[in-house]
C-alpha cells in the first residue's frame, strides 16, 4: 500500500492516513536505517533506528489487518538488513554486492612467513618421541601467531576501506582496486580462521 503523503523514510506508517508505506522494489540495507553505505558505521545508531522501526512496523502491530502478510515480509527484510550490517564481514560483503564487485575466489594460502613454521609443527606432531604436552605447547604457540596474523589482516582490510571512504566511497568501478585489496585480506583472514579452528579441535583432543 502507498499513500501520497510526503515522508523521507523508506518504511513508515503514515501519520496522516495510517497506511503502511512500503518501498516499491528491493531495498538497500543502509537506507533502511537512513544512513549512507559505508564500511565504518555507528552500530548503536543503527540499533536505535531498528528499535524505532520495530515499534511501528513489527507484524504484531498488523494483526488481523489486510497488510499483515506484507508487514511480515517487510519486517523479515528489516531483520535481514540489521543482521547484514551488524558485523564488518557482512558490511564488506554487502558493499561488494552494491558495487557489483565479485570478490576473487583465488585460493589464499598461509602467509609466507608462517609457512615454514607450519611445516615444522606438522613434523613435530607426527614425531612419536615428543610428549603430548610438548605438542600441545607447540600448537598453542602457533595459534598465538595465527591470532596476530588475523589482526593484521583485519587492519589491512580496514585500511583499504578507509582509503575507499576517503575518495568519496564510490560504488562503481572506481571502487574495484580498493575492494580487491580488502577482499584479499578477508580471504586471508578466513583461511587463518579455519586453520585456527582446526588447531583448536586438535588441542581439545
Amino acid at each position, binding site marked *: 500500500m502507498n499513500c501520497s503523503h510526503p515522508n523521507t523514510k523508506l518504511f513508515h506508517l503514515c501519520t496522516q492516513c495510517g497506511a503502511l508505506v512500503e518501498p516499491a522494489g528491493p531495498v538497500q540495507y543502509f537506507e533502511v536505517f537512513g544512513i549512507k553505505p559505508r564500511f565504518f558505521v555507528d552500530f548503536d545508531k543503527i540499533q536505535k533506528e531498528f*528499535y524505532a522501526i*520495530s*515499534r511501528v512496523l*513489527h507484524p*504484531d502491530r498488523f494483526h488481523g489487518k489486510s497488510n499483515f502478510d506484507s508487514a*511480515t*515480509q517487510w519486517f*523479515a527484510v528489516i531483520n*535481514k538488513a540489521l*543482521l547484514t550490517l551488524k558485523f564488518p564481514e557482512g558490511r564488506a560483503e554487502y558493499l561488494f554486492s552494491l558495487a557489483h564487485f565479485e570478490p576473487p575466489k583465488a585460493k589464499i594460502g598461509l602467509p609466507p612467513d608462517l609457512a615454514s613454521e607450519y611445516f615444522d609443527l606438522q613434523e613435530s606432531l607426527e614425531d612419536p618421541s615428543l610428549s603430548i604436552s610438548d605438542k600441545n605447547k607447540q600448537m598453542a604457540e602457533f595459534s598465538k601467531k595465527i591470532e596476530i596474523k588475523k589482526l593484521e589482516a583485519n587492519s589491512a582490510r580496514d585500511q583499504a576501506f578507509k582509503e575507499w571512504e576517503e575518495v568519496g566511497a564510490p560504488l562503481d568501478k572506481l571502487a574495484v582496486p580498493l575492494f580487491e585489496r580488502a577482499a584479499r585480506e578477508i580471504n586471508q583472514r578466513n583461511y587463518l580462521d579455519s586453520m585456527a579452528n582446526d588447531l583448536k579441535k586438535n588441542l581439545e583432543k
Partner: protein
Amino acid sequence: MSDIILGIDLGTTNSLVAVCENGRPRVIHDKNGEVLVPSVIYWTDEALSPVIGREAKRQRLRDATHTVSSVKRFIGRGKSDLDVGTLNSADTRKSTEKNILVTLGNRSVSAIELSSEILKRLKKMAEEALGINIYKAVVTVPAYFNDSQRSATKAAGTLAGLEIVRIVNEPTAAALAYGLDRKKEGLIAVYDLGGGTFDMSILKLHDGIFEVLATNGDTALGGDDFDQELAHLIMPQLRSQGFTDLNNVDNKSALSEGSERIKMRLSIQDAANESIVLSGKSFETRVTRAEFEKAITPLIEKTVKITRQALEDSGLEKSEINDVVMVGGSTRIPLVRRAISDFFGKEVNTQVNPDEVVALGAAIQADILSGRNTELVLLDVVPLSLGIETYGGTVGKLVHRNTKIPAVAQETFTTHVDGQRNVLIHVLQGERELALDCRSLARFDLKGLPPMPAGLPKIQVTFLVDANGILTVKAKEETTKMEALVEVRPTYGMTDEQVEKMLEQGFEFAEQDLKSRQLIDTRVEAEGILNSAEKILKVAHESESGTPNEFTDDLKIVRTEIDTVRVLMAGNDYIAIKNALEKLEMAAKPIAAKVMNTALNSSLARKNVDDILKK
C-alpha cells in the same frame, strides 16, 4: 463476536489460561477456584469426550489404561522421536513415522487431538469465567520447540475451535510478565525448567522492547525426568518389601505419582517418607535430599551446559547479566537454584510465580496483538537452524539459529546431472552437519525443468519464517521462461485437510457430545462439592468436642445427602445429580456458617474460610 484473545500456557504437567484487562494480566480460576488444570486426560471407552484436569488426574490411579499425561512430550513428534521415559504409562505402539498415537482402552488418539481436548477445557473455563464466547488465543510453547511441534500445536488449537493467533516462546512470555511489572531495563536470563521441557533464553529489555538475543534448550528434559530418577531410587526399597509387578500400567502411574510427591517434599524437607500403594498393597519408602540431588545432578549439569551455550550465542559474559529469572515448577528444587546461582555467580530471582508467569505473558502478548497495548514489542528468534540438503547429504543452512524473526533467506541451487528434469528439495532443521542427523521438515519435488546441462538451471529457494517461528518454503526455477513455483508447509503428522475433516466430524457429534459433556461436567462439579462437604463435616466434628452438640442433626442430614449424590453419580442422569447437589448445598450451608463462626472466635480469627477448609 468478542475480540478477547486468551493467553494459554499449555504445559506438560499443568495448563492454565490468563487474560488481560485494562493492560493488566490475570489468571482465570475455575468454579472451584483452581488455576492450574492438570494436563491429564481420562477417556473411557463409552465417553464421546474425555475428562480433563484434576478429576482425570485422580482417575489415573484407578484406571491408568484410560488415562494419559505429559502429552506435550508427544506433540509434533513421530515414532522415531519417542524418547519419553518408561514411567510414562502411555501406550504408543500404534504411532506412525509422523504422528504419535496414544491408545486409551479401545481407541487410539493422536497427540494433536489430545492437546486439543486440553485446549477445549481451557477455552470453556475462560468462557464460563468471562461470560462470553472466545475464538482466539495466544499459546506458548517451549522456545526450543521445532517447526513440527509448533505447527502441531497450532493445529490442536484449530481442532479445539480456537484460532491460535500467535505461538509465543515460554521464556519470552515469562520475560514479558516479569518486565511489565517491574519496568525493568537490562539484560536478563530466563531459566525455564518445567514438567517436561527446558529452555534458556537471554533477553535485552529496553524501553518496552523485549529482544531475545539467544535461546537454547531441550524439549525432553524436565520434572518428569526427576520423577523417573526418584522411581529408580526407591525401586530397591519396593523390591525388598516384595514388589514385583512394574509392567502393570496402574502401578506405573502410582509409582510416577508417588515419585512426584517425594520430589515435592524434598524441595522443603531434608528427607521424605512416603507410602505408595501398588497392586493394592502399601509400600514404605524413604529418600533423603542428598540421595535425590546426587541422582539428578547429571540432568542439572545438562541444563548448565545449555545455559553456557545460550550465553555464548548471545555474545555476553556471565557478569553482564543483570537478573536470572527462574520459571517453571521444577525451579523449586533447591539444587536447581543452587547450580544456576553458582553458574552466574549471583543470587537467582525466584520472585515470579513459576507456575503462572508464562500464561500471564501470553495474555500480555494477546493484548499487544489486539492492538490495545502499543507500548511493548517482542523481538524473538528462531531456536534451531533451517536449511536444505545439499549434494552429498550435508546441510546448507539458510537461516541460522538465533536469527530474528520474521526472517527471510534465499539461496540458489542447481542440478548435478545433464538433462535432469526434476530437483528434490529436502528441508531440514537442526544444528548438525549431516542431513540425516537433522530433523526432516519437508521434501518436495520441483518437477518439469527443461533439459539443460548440469549446473545451468538456477533454482531459487526462499525461506520465510513468520513471527510464530513457523517456516514456509518457496522454490522457483529462473533461467527458463517457464517458472515453477511450489509452496510448502512442513508436515507435522496431520495435513490441513485432515484437521478440517476432524472439525466437521466434531460438529456432527456435537449434540451427542453435549449430553455426555454435561454428565461429565456435573460429575466433576459433584466431586468438588463432595470434597468441600466432607471437609466441612470434618472441621465440624473436630470443633464439636468440648462444645454442646448443637448441630449433630444437621450433620446427619448432610451425611445422607452426600450418600445420595454418590449413588446418583454412578448413573447417567445428570439432572438428578444436579438436584441432589442443590439439596446437599442447602443442607451444608448452615453448618458452613457455624463452622465459620466457631473459627472466627478461635485463634484462626485472621484466616478466611478457604484456609480453614484447606486444613
